[in-house]
């Protein structure tokens, strides 16, 4: 087989140095005067729960990814400018102000910090808590203070501090702190109640005495940011400053330093943000200048996700940090869609786009060297679909329809490689290889060639098409595995491996779960990861296949590329953006929208990992450089319960609180802080003791009311996708007390009270019934007595005697007398059963009785009746008057010389029966029952007692007038 080899030379070469400004950290303005009620941002801080605190010249705001909440400060702080913020071990936030005041508190409220010793009258420039919970603060003019055991102490020049004007403060080791001042740096500590100060400045070789920023660097020393000379490193062991060399610092005063591990981000007053890449032994390997958040940057913050915040020109800026860089345009020309990309070990990134094939090299300073290797398609160049550099240094570029190009080591001259035997298809989608052989993924099956050129300087290709190969001719990708294995992604046979001359399928039975595999890569643990066209990502671990798809948290199942990255991450590229899988735990996350990654529409396998820990991703709009070490991209949202409020009570509750049954309306405000893409965070909540399971929700408030008494725990988890197995959780236990009316201390007394009441009622009823029975008996007795008295034989005998006398005198009067007598007896019979009769009727009875008695006693008995008209309808027990008149006649002398006067008259509400008292010498036999009967009969009908009034000359009975119901007097 004599391959025909044709060299096709391009004499087309251009090397250009382009100032590339596009690959810096892209800041966006998050909060300015508009969001912060006209306030100017002075500082920014992230508390231990993850909230971003924004200090301004008019108080402080809290940012949760959604809104800027203005925090209420005590009156004295309302218009004070916040100069620094810190957080203690109890999650209290401390604010230092530029007028020397200090406040501490939390979202719900702040208090003034007011030690007995008073507070500085100069700006607070730094606040921090050392591990022993001691509060330290530096001032501009009064040196350093620390607050320990409720007492404030001061370090100033009088104690040996280099200078009282301190710019910044940093934590040293073992309870000590570093300060930077106009006289270099000082290490301050308190040992056995004695102050220790070590000043380091010119003697130790500091390049510039004015130190505006000190920052603890790892375990050993500190970084020092100076007024004029930039950056220096101080080693406390050697007591010497080392200033990184190899560059000229002309960026002005350093205001802040952030360490990203090998990369320092430096804020400057005048030159924006400077990025200094550090090589071994803290030598500078690169420096970049970044103005995207303004020129005068006063404060930087690296949050827990690795995002970088900056404060500049009174506004707050946000970026994803140095972990994501964008190469969108070079010298005003956009890179456009990247079709193929390869990060070579020589530090260059080769990429093919519509404009040709390029080599990109990052230079020390803020510039990139861009070399064009092949022209654009419009000027006759090929469309590049794959790039690879073999171990000899030859660069290979596969094209779509135009075969293969090779650049000899170090050469910028392309030679087209063709194979007359037709073993190499012209559509080359992937290239890989080892020291000896190259493999090609083509639309004509896998092809292979030896790297060693033959005698004619050509290459011989072998092809493994349908017959001898994996059974499918459309090969999308090829990757080198371990132990001489090669992996192929096919368009119908899934994943295929090649080893020792044989193609095989990773799973017994020869059927990979996905038919179409676009990409494949091996991680550092030897797991194989593949991206399928439609079914997500598969991990093959010792013939065990695991699928990662929508249900595991991927945003789509249509995977463009997968590639293994440092920090156990698998970068999954698809049209919606970039998802990340932790290759060990299986946790899925993604690079957020705030980071600027959306709608990539990337070409297949335009991804490559370089030797320095970055993954390069070609998109439809240039290149993304992702460096996992500079981000904390797998960090899950930190879930925190922000506030628990009881309806209408205003205040906020604490975990473990007990609520009364009546204030049983609780609302839980929670959030999963994820500044990458706050709106993508979803939640699931559960109220243990109430909900049977997790309830998914997008809300950040949960309200519960009318909970039954008992113990509850509110739990909430947040996640960036549907998988909550890695979610962080916050919980809030509480108790609802049973209502008072179900408590034993209420029920028992109430039951006792009811029993007591029932007993009292029963007893009073029994008493009343007894009394009524008594009265009834008395009434019966009185009736009997009355009857007996009326049929008194004497009465009858007297009447008959009188009658006899009258009959002889006057027959007519006798008839009248007998009539009255019989009327009287009829009345007795008639009324004796009645309880009450009108007074008028009673008077009639009395009159007939009086008539009878008059006939006997004549003028000796004088009876006067004077009752007012209105009393005639009042009621009276029958025969009362008759009885009283009878008594009067019975007991008193009635004679001509001593006539008996009886008067019946009414007076107010009383009926008075009065007679002159002239008792007979021999008293009549009296049972005394008459009056007593009257008395007891009255008791049935009225509460008023009858009154008996006896003087020497008169005897009166006062009868209360009983009034008919419904009728007044």
């Amino acid at each position, binding site marked *: 087989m004599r391959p025909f080899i044709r060299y096709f030379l391009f004499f087309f070469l251009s090397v250009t140095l382009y100032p590339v400004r596009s690959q810096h950290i892209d800041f966006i303005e998050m909060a300015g005067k508009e969001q912060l009620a006209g306030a100017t941002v002075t500082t920014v801080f992230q508390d231990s729960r993850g909230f971003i605190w924004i200090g301004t010249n008019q108080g402080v705001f809290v940012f949760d990814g959604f809104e800027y909440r203005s925090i209420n400060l005590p009156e004295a702080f309302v218009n004070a400018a916040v100069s620094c913020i810190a957080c203690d071990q109890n999650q209290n936030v401390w604010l230092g102000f530029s007028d020397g005041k200090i406040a501490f508190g939390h979202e719900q409220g702040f208090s003034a910090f007011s030690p*007995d*010793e*008073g507070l*500085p*009258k100069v700006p607070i420039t730094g606040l921090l808590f050392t591990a022993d919970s001691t509060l330290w603060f530096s001032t501009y*003019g*009064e040196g350093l203070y620390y607050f320990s055991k409720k*007492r*404030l*102490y*001061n370090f*100033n020049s*009088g104690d040996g501090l280099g200078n009282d004007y301190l710019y910044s403060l940093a934590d040293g080791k073992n309870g000590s702190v570093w300060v930077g001042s106009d006289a270099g740096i000082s290490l301050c500590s308190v040992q056995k109640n004695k102050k220790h100060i070590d000043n380091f400045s010119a003697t130790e070789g500091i390049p510039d005495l004015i130190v505006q920023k000190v920052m603890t660097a790892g375990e050993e020393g500190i970084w020092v940011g100076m007024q004029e000379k930039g950056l220096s490193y101080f080693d406390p062991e050697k007591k010497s400053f080392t200033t990184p060399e190899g560059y000229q610092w002309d960026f002005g005063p350093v205001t802040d330093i952030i360490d990203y591990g090998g990369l320092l981000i430096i804020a400057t007053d005048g030159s924006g943000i400077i990025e200094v890449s550090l090589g071994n032994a803290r030598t500078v390997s690169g420096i970049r200048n970044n103005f995207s958040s303004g020129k005068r940057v006063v404060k930087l913050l690296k949050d827990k996700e690795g995002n970088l915040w900056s404060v500049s020109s009174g506004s707050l800026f946000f970026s994803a940090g140095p972990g994501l860089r964008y190469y969108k345009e070079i010298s005003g020309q956009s890179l456009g869609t990247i079709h193929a990309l390869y990060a070579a070990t020589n530090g260059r990134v080769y990429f093919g786009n519509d404009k040709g094939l390029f080599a990109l090299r990052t230079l020390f300073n803020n510039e990139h060297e861009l070399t064009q290797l092949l022209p654009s398609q419009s000027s006759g160049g090929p469309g590049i679909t794959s790039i690879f550099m073999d171990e000899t240094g030859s660069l290979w570029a596969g094209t779509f329809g135009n075969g293969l190009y090779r650049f000899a080591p170090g050469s910028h001259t392309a030679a087209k490689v063709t194979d007359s035997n037709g073993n190499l298809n012209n559509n080359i989608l992937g290239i890989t290889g080892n020291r000896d052989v190259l493999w090609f993924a083509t639309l004509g099956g896998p092809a292979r060639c030896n790297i060693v050129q033959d005698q004619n300087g050509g290459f011989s290709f072998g092809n493994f098409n349908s017959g001898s190969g994996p059974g499918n001719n459309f090969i999308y990708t090829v990757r080198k595995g371990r132990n001489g294995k090669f992996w192929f992604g096919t368009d119908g046979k899934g994943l295929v491996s090649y080893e020792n001359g044989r193609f095989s399928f990773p799973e017994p039975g020869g059927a990979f779960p996905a038919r179409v595999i676009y990409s494949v890569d091996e991680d550092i643990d030897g797991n194989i990861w593949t991206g399928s066209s439609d079914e997500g990502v598969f991990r093959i671990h010792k013939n065990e296949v695991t699928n990662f798809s929508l249900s595991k948290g991927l945003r789509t199942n249509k995977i463009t590329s997968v590639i293994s990255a440092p920090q156990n991450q698998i970068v999954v590229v698809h049209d919606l953006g970039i998802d990340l899988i932790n290759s060990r735990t299986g946790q899925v996350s993604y690079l957020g929208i705030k980071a600027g990654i959306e709608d990539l529409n990337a070409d297949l396998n335009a991804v490559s990992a370089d030797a320095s820990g970055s993954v390069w991703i070609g998109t439809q709009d240039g290149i993304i450089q992702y460096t996992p070490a500079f981000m904390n991209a797998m960090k899950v949202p930190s879930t925190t319960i922000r506030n628990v409020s009881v309806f209408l009570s205003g205040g906020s509750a604490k975990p473990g609180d007990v609520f009364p049954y009546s204030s049983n309306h609780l609302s839980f405000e929670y959030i999963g802080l994820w500044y990458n893409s706050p709106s993508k965070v979803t939640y699931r909540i559960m109220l243990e003791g109430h909900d049977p399971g997790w309830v998914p929700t997008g809300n950040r408030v949960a309200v519960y009311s009318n909970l039954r008494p008992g113990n509850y725990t509110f739990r909430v988890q947040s996640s960036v996708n549907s998988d909550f197995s890695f979610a962080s959780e916050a919980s809030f236990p509480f108790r609802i007390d049973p209502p008072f009316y179900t408590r034993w201390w209420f029920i028992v007394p109430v039951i006792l009270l009811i029993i007591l009441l029932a007993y009292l009622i029963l007893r009073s009823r029994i008493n009343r019934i007894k009394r009524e029975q008594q009265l009834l008996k008395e009434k019966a007795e009185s009736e009997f007595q009355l009857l007996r008295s009326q049929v008194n034989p004497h009465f009858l005998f007297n009447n008959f005697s009188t009658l006899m006398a009258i009959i002889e005198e006057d027959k007519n009067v006798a008839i009248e007398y007998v009539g009255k007598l019989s009327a009287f007896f009829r009345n007795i019979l008639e009324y004796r059963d009645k309880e009450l009769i009108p007074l008028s009727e009673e008077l009639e009875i009395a009159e007939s009785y009086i008539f009878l008695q008059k006939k006997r006693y004549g003028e000796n008995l004088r009876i006067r009746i004077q009752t007012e008209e209105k009393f005639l309808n009042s009621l009276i027990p029958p025969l009362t008057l008759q009885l009283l008149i009878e008594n009067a006649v019975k007991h008193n002398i009635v004679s001509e010389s001593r006539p008996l006067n009886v008067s019946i008259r009414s007076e107010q509400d009383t009926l008075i029966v009065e007679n002159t008292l002239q008792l007979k010498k021999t008293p009549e036999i009296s049972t005394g029952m008459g009056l007593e009967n009257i008395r007891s009969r009255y008791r049935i009908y009225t509460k008023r007692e009858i009154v008996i009034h006896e003087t020497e000359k008169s005897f009166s009975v006062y009868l209360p007038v009983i009034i008919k119901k419904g009728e007044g007097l």
Partner: protein
Amino acid sequence: MFKLCYISLFVLLLMVSVSAQQPDNQTIFSTKNGKVTFRSDAPLELITASSPELRGAVDISSRSFTFSVTNRTLKGFNSPLQQEHFYENYIEAGSYPVSTFKGKIIEQTDLTIPGNYQVRAKGILDIHGVAQERIIKVNMQVKNGQIAVTSEFLVPLSDHNITIPRIVYQKIAEEIVVTVEAVLTGGTKK
């Protein structure tokens, strides 16, 4: 006692000699009859005592100061026995005859200008032979060539190793309120 008095006198003299280098300025203000009062407000007993013999000097150019009081000049106890206990058992005036506070004013206040100032005096408070660094708020009224100084601060007994027998714990407060009133006059005009 004589030794300490001598030292404080020496300090005063030193200040005088320092200020002498600035002949045109009257920089040292001093007093020999300031009033210092202490008050122990315990649950069972209120004890106050004061001394009219507070000596003190402030150098307004360097903002340094020194104040001292001879402990045995404190008078006004509830009983002679109590006074004796105070001198012998608590303050131990035999061993530690003088209490002093000396240091420097933190604020960069220009005390040559008449006015009312609240400043913080940072210094070493030496009572009962135990020196403690303290920051004490002081009101200074500069008027008619005089500086009127008033201050009130707490001195915890435990700070200065003054131990109270358990039996009188209810009668002596753990923290003593000290008030100072003094009018310092310029006396070094040259």
